[in-house]
Each structure stands twice: as structure tokens, then as C-alpha cells.
């Protein structure tokens, strides 16, 4: 990709599956995930980095998929909200905490919130309640008044400490 071009062939891993594609350089990662790869759990809201709904996990980090070009994710490992639950449908701990605390209503912002919290709590990471709450500044939720999300975070922090 050191030669300038307006179109590229890509290969990345999405939710554990190899995905290949060809797309214009100007295509955002969010659009690639939705339109080319079919992961419509990636919710594109504002498309200029304000709302956080399109947040996905790229190489272990929560990032806004509207603020990254698909071509930049060539070779990357990506997790969307579709890739978090177990194959048998058992919820990821973040999803379970969100459900148990009624942390969503319309659900538009939810995939982004879940991806941020899943990235923060991945592996042996034990983020504090304060760290998880601080990361929520990057998400806008218009339904819940955030209190359900706060409770889900409290529950996750308690689970992590246990």
C-alpha cells in the first residue's frame, strides 16, 4: 500500500473469520463492516466521531469505526458486537450485565458501549469502576439517562473484583 491508489484489496479477521474484500480507499471501516461484511451490529450514528455508536474492537482496542479507513484495517483482527457471545448464545459478561441492569432501551448506542466495555475488561484486565465510567464519555445514549449503564458497570466492577 505504499503506492497511491484509490482502490485496494483487503484481508482482515472479523469475529474470528477471515474476510477478504476490495473497496475504495475512502470507505470507512464502519461501512466496510456493515455493507461488505454484513455485520450490521455496527451502528453508524453521526459518522464524525461524536456519538460512539460505531465503536468496534480493533486489535484489542475500542475505536470508532467511522474514524478509520477500511484500508487501514488490512491485516487487523476485529471484533464487533456479533462476535462477543459464545457460539451457543451465552452472553458475554458485558452483555449479561447490560441486560440484567436494563442498560438499554432503543439499543442504537448499545453495540458501541458493549464493545468499549468488552475491550476494557478483556483477558485479565480488571479496570476500576471509575476507569469504565470515564470511558463512557465517548458514548452518547439518548434513552437510558445512563443510569442503567452505570449500574451495569458497577456490576461488572464487582464481578471483576470478586
Amino acid at each position, binding site marked *: 500500500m505504499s503506492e497511491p*491508489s484509490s482502490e485496494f484489496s483487503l484481508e482482515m479477521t472479523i469475529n474470528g473469520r477471515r474476510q477478504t474484500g476490495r473497496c475504495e480507499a475512502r470507505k470507512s471501516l464502519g461501512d466496510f463492516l456493515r455493507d461488505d461484511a454484513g455485520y450490521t451490529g455496527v451502528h453508524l450514528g453521526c459518522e464524525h466521531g461524536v456519538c460512539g455508536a460505531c465503536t468496534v474492537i480493533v486489535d484489542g*482496542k475500542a475505536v470508532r469505526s467511522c474514524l478509520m479507513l477500511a484500508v487501514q484495517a488490512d491485516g487487523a483482527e476485529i471484533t464487533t458486537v456479533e462476535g462477543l457471545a459464545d457460539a451457543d448464545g451465552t452472553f458475554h459478561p458485558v452483555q449479561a450485565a447490560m441486560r440484567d441492569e436494563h442498560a438499554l432501551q432503543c439499543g442504537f448506542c448499545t453495540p458501541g458501549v458493549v464493545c468499549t466495555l468488552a475491550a476494557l475488561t478483556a483477558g485479565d484486565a480488571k479496570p476500576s469502576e471509575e476507569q469504565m465510567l470515564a470511558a463512557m*464519555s465517548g458514548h452518547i445514549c439518548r434513552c437510558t439517562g445512563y443510569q442503567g449503564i452505570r449500574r451495569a458497570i458497577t456490576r461488572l466492577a464487582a464481578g471483576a473484583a470478586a
Partner: protein
Amino acid sequence: MKPAPFDYAAPATIAEACALLAESGGGATILAGGQTLMPLLNLRMSQPFIIVDINKIAALKGIARTDAGIRIGPATRQADALGDALLAAELPVFVEALSNVGHHQTRNRGTIGGSVALGEPAAEMPATAVALGATIEVQSARGTRQIPAHDFYLGPYMTVLEPDELVTGIHYPAWPSGHVILFREVAQRPGDFALVGLVGALALEGGVITRAGIAWFGMGPTPIKARAAEAALLGKSIDAIDSAAIAELAISETAPFSDHHASAEYRRTVGRRIFTRTLSEALNIRRAA
């Protein structure tokens, strides 16, 4: 809301990147973290012919001690700098300022150099570079140059960078251990640009200030170095400082805007108060120690 078509290249070396910038005749835009550029592309406020992505250039990443301080590669992610042990130990005010840049998710992509080179006047990183006396290393196919941060900014989003130039490093001079750190910003929400902010450091020897670096952000068209306040602090004992008088000097050099977030008068009033409070609290802690 999609960007206008463009060509894209991700060169592996600084020389290749500089060659692309030179060939483009000013039609290129450098893509670092993309956390400001991508919105501008999506909104079509920016329509470059070619995007030069510097994320694959290893030489532009990393944080290292040098003979005179700390050098940060411009493509270093903000999140990586935030977790860096060397910066935490030697430039804690930089880390404090950085923790206020954007959000967790944008810091995972956003870079130090992108923020410094963009020149948003209400942003933390340009003011921090000015306050701490940083030097910005720049390269093009024509050669290299070193620009003091306080000469780098011309106006909102305007810098002395030529279209064919690439920032290749930001050098922060060492501040002696035990220096006093000053940081305070007022923003409407966490992660928002500051309405008013100040950042700085004071070096002490036996309770006397031997070096002062202070800058405002959100208080004019560029980061504003508080030169009169710095001069008034130099050589003073920390027991003999009238924080309110120093704040008045610092405010006298600002040129805040009125916009829909706050009036210029609001910014001056709040600026005066946070300067006085931040300076006196920092000095009180030092006197008590």
C-alpha cells in the same frame, strides 16, 4: 456522509512520505490518528487528492529519553503515551494534560503529533508543547528544520508547516525532578475542548523559581505563552508570590473569542480564577512539603 474520492498511500519510510508530499504539490493530507481528519473528510470539509497515511512508518513511533529530555514520535498513540512510565515519571504534567484529550476511544487511535500539528487553539497538546518549551522536528524532501513550539502556531489550525513538510518528532526538554506542575481546564463535558485552560511547569532551587513555562489554551487564536507571568515568577521565592497578581499578568496577554459556548469575558473571568487557584494550590502544596 462519505468522503470525496481520494488516492491513499501508506509509505513505510519518512523519505517515501516526504516524496509523496513533494509530488502532490500541496494536494496531499497527512493521516496520523485520523480523529480530526476523518470527520473533516466525512463532512467533505477537507477534500485532498491524496492521503498519506504515516501509521506504517516505525521511525515515527515511540517515546525515548534523549540527552536533553524526551522525544516523542508523532505517530505515537495518545493511549500509549498515557500509559508510558518514562513520561509519568519525568513529565507528569504532559500526562495530566493528555488525559484530558478526547475520549478513551479516540485516544486509542489519536496521536501526539496529530494533535500538536493540527493546532486547535483550545486543545491541550499544542499548549503543553508551548508551555514546556518543546521543539518540533520537521522534515521534507528539501531538508529538515527544528521549530520552537512557541513559533509554530500562527492561528486556528494554522501553523508554519509547509504543505510538503512532515512532523518527525517532538522534543520536550527535561524539567528538573520535583518541578511544580500546573494544569487546569474548564470544559462543558469530559472530552470536550476546553473553554479555558492552562498548563505549565515551574522549576525550583531552594524555594526559588529558576524556570517557568506556562501557556493558555482556549484563550486566543493559538496557544498563548504567558510570558509576562513567567518573567514575574522567575527568581521569586515561592513564599513571596501573589498568585492573583501573576494571574492578572497572564490574563493581560490573552485574546479570547466569544462564541456560542462562552463569551470572551466569561473566559477571562474563569481564566483569572483558575490561574490564581491553580498557582496558589500548587505552591501551597510545595510549601507544606
